[in-house]
């Protein structure tokens, strides 16, 4: 990052190669469609370049800092475009190869996916960072710039809602 601060484009390219996957995954989980994800990811790395002097290696890891930038961009985007109609901008849901091919199984996944995308942004981001991006609770709290208590409260509520949805679906 020191090299990026000095304008070293080769160092910038290395970091882009290393972190594009994680950042794009996070943005996709927050926004739900290709186009917005690509725009946010591109903007994240542009900000990494222009604000490289703001990164403090003794205070956080680079991946944490990048996720914070991506998160703030996602939130700004969602607020600007209205969080309530998020489901209208979904791409078709991508499933892993080991997903059962039965209609019920796919419907269950789709139901849960819509539930996740319908969570308030604080709960969705907490769940995405801790469950999908594998950050610890402390790291996720740092990214979201909240206390760990606030983060765990959001996580608990998010998981409770999803359990209720899965539980109701099974009845």
């Amino acid at each position, binding site marked *: 990052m020191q090299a990026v601060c000095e304008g070293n484009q080769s160092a910038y390219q290395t970091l*882009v190669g290393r972190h594009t996957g994680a950042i794009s995954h996070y943005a996709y989980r927050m926004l739900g469609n290709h186009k917005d994800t690509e725009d946010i990811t591109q903007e994240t790395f542009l900000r990494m370049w222009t604000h490289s002097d703001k990164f403090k290696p003794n205070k956080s890891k680079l991946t944490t800092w990048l996720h914070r930038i991506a998160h703030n961009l996602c939130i700004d985007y969602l607020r600007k475009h209205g969080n309530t109609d998020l489901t209208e901008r979904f791409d078709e849901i991508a499933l892993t190869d080991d997903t059962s091919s039965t209609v019920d199984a796919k419907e269950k996944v789709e139901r849960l996916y819509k539930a996740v995308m319908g969570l308030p942004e604080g709960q969705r981001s907490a769940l995405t960072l801790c*469950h999908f991006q594998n950050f610890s609770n402390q790291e996720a709290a740092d990214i979201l710039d909240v206390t760990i208590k606030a983060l765990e409260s959001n996580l608990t509520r998010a998981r409770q809602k999803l359990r209720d949805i899965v539980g109701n679906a099974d009845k």
Partner: protein
Amino acid sequence: MTDRLMALTEFTNYLGRYGSRVDAWPPAERDSALALLQDSNEAIQLLNAQTEVDSTLGQLAVPEFPGLEKRILNQALPPKKLPALDRLIQWLIPHHTPGLWRPASAACLPLFFGILLSNYYSFGISEEQIADEAWSDELYILALNEYDQRL
């Protein structure tokens, strides 16, 4: 009964905070949870429900983004604005020069300014004063000698 209910409430809270992978919970909470799971059907049902949620979430893939990295690398980056001192040093010494030049040059700056200052200012000491002091010392030493012998 109260203790068991409290433990279940606590278990639900931990489940929300850490997810269904009890083996990955902090050690103290993990041991309490495993003990509760030996005993409580409600706790087992809760854990199973959370496991089902986590497993279903795991089936949500993220699609590929072909060309995204290339697109990011191709975007125009604004030129870096270096601090004034760094720009001066970069102008004096090209960027490809080994990095030691910069701290060495910076370390020489006080010496350079010191030489300039001393050449420009006398600090109250004049050359005549120095010469006078040197002669007075010389005369004093001569006066201390005994001149018994005729030269």
